[in-house]
């Protein structure tokens, strides 16, 4: 393993970055396509965070929208009402959201919540956030929303620059993900997603890993949220609702493949294409999301990336055995459910 060059495991990250960096060159004339592409980057970054949370540490956070919304509302309100400069405001908002993510995770870990309870608590948090934003009309304008023009770093005025900044965030998220997965921490995460009790027994601090991962994910998600607020020029609570953020992110991750490096990116691309097709039909998007979710979870739970990988491995298997360690983006077993079949006796609840 050590014979590999130090940076070779970053090649897929770099490749993705370079490929996506070329997009604005092709669509320069069309602002609409660039907008969709920028949104795709955000979706992919959310999904990287959600992948860490749900894929690797089995924390079903149904409050991605809240974390992003905290970044967005936090940064906007700090500039508008507290007079902070935009960059500092974004930093503070991200710090707050990171704390929130870590806190939610900590509570879940401390109380020994299973997937279901974490899901319910975070869903409740999402609804509380919605009602809070709606209720605090004085600061947030309720459903009317806030026009963020002139309150941010000016992403709305420079779409191409915005694209590259968000691409940088995505690449950073992917790089951090890849670096973690290649290190001993990655091994620990694999162990604890397999069986938490066994991981704990072999000396892995499960609580610390879960909380740390939640904080990291929340940081990236809220940073994207804050940049979204600036880029979109307008924020309202419904933009950060479960239906608008969490469900698409869940679909993206399932489409692309859980516990893979590129799953979020591939998923976001496929999702964006599907979304562009159904968008003209208005309410039908919701229907499409639902059908997609069901269909994906029933027949396509492994995701595109795992599927491609398996095909590739089959091609290669005649020449060499499956590689382990750095450079292999995905778990050999991409199916989050099948690998738990042997640990039925365990009950973390």
């Amino acid at each position, binding site marked *: 393993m050590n014979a590999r060059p130090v940076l070779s495991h970053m090649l897929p990250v770099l490749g993705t970055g370079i490929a996506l960096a070329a997009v604005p060159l092709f669509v320069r004339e069309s602002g609409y396509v660039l907008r969709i592409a920028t949104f795709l980057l955000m979706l992919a970054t959310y999904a990287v965070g959600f992948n860490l949370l749900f894929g690797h540490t089995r924390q*079903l956070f149904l409050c991605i929208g809240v974390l992003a919304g905290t970044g967005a509302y936090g940064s906007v309100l700090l500039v508008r009402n507290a007079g902070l400069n935009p960059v500092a405001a974004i930093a503070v908002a991200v710090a707050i959201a990171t704390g929130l993510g870590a806190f939610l995770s900590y*509570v879940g870990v401390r*109380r*020994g*919540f*299973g*997937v*279901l*309870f974490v*899901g*319910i*608590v975070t*869903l*409740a*948090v999402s*609804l*509380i956030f919605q*009602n*809070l934003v*709606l*209720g605090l009309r004085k600061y947030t304008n309720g459903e009317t929303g806030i026009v963020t023009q002139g309150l941010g770093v000016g992403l709305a005025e420079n779409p191409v620059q915005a694209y590259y900044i968000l691409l940088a965030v995505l690449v950073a998220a992917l790089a951090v993900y890849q670096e973690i997965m290649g290190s001993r921490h990655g091994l620990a995460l694999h162990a604890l997603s397999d069986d938490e009790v066994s991981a704990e027994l072999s000396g892995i601090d499960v609580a610390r890993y879960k909380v740390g991962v939640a904080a990291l994910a929340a940081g990236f998600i809220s940073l994207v949220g804050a940049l979204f607020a600036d880029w979109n020029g307008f924020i309202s609570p419904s933009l950060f609702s479960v*239906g608008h953020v969490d*469900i698409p992110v*869940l679909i993206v991750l399932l489409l692309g493949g859980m516990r893979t490096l590129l799953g979020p990116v591939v998923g976001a691309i496929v999702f964006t294409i599907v979304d562009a097709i159904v968008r003209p*039909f*208005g*309410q*039908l*998007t*919701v*229907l*499409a*999301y*639902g*059908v*997609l*979710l*069901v*269909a994906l*979870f*029933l027949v396509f739970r492994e995701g595109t990336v795992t599927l491609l990988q398996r095909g590739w491995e089959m091609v290669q298997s005649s020449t060499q055995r499956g590689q382990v360690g750095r450079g292999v983006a995905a778990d050999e077993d991409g199916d*989050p*459910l099948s690998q*738990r*079949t042997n640990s*039925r006796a365990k*009950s*973390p*609840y």
Partner: protein
Amino acid sequence: MSIVIDGLVLGLQLALLSVGMVFVYGLGGILNLAHGEVAVAGGLIAALLLQGGRPPVVACSAGVIASGALAWFIDRTLLRPAYSRHGEERLILALILTLGTSFALDGFFTYRYPNVALTLRLPTTSVDLFGITVRTASLAVGGLALTTFGVLLGFLKSTMLGKAIRCIIQNEAGALLCGVDVDRVRTFTLFLSGLLAGLAAIAQGFFSYLGPDMGAEFTILALIVAVVGGVRSLTGTFLASLLLGLVNTTMSYWVGTYLTWIALLAVTVTTLLVRPQGLLAYWP
């Protein structure tokens, strides 16, 4: 005083809604996030039949049965793969599948029937009862709910099928060993939960109106009640419903809707934090 009565009746309606969800969860380890949509489906069918000139009783009965049938259909088709798994796997699979179903149904309803709403008007709006003015709608819903619960309790206590249901809630494997056809009983329970959800939708029609977009709200209300009330007993759910109904009505009256929602959700989260095991955590 009439606020208290309204609150209690709202609680009864909540109970109708959430008992089904609690049953299904207790029985199959499945949290049915499409529960609210099942209710809305029944309500919409009743509304469509009413528009078509059918008598209200026929329309409502048809709606309730349609809700049951939809729940039965979901059980027979979508939840099959979930039942073949156990414990946490089953839970996650069912959670995502029903979440997807609820979105699909919600999208379909709001797209296809955006302007259909169920409203049931009674001939008189309010009557005087022991010096308190009570809306006839409240009386109707209260009567409907109490009768339903009476029948339900009798069914669970004295029929073989009812005993089988309680048996599975206690211990799925044990029930199987005793010769209970777990699969069929589970399907029946989903059908039952659908019927109850349909009734809750009709009750909503009595109060104000039932629109195609109310499924998510219903699901969340049922979820809140389920969490606060716990899963083991009908009484827990029942009491939680009444309590939350009261809190909801009085708080909406005094402090407004947003704060009420926040309070309800805060109660939920607090319950989970303080007594998670005693409330919803029953593990098959």
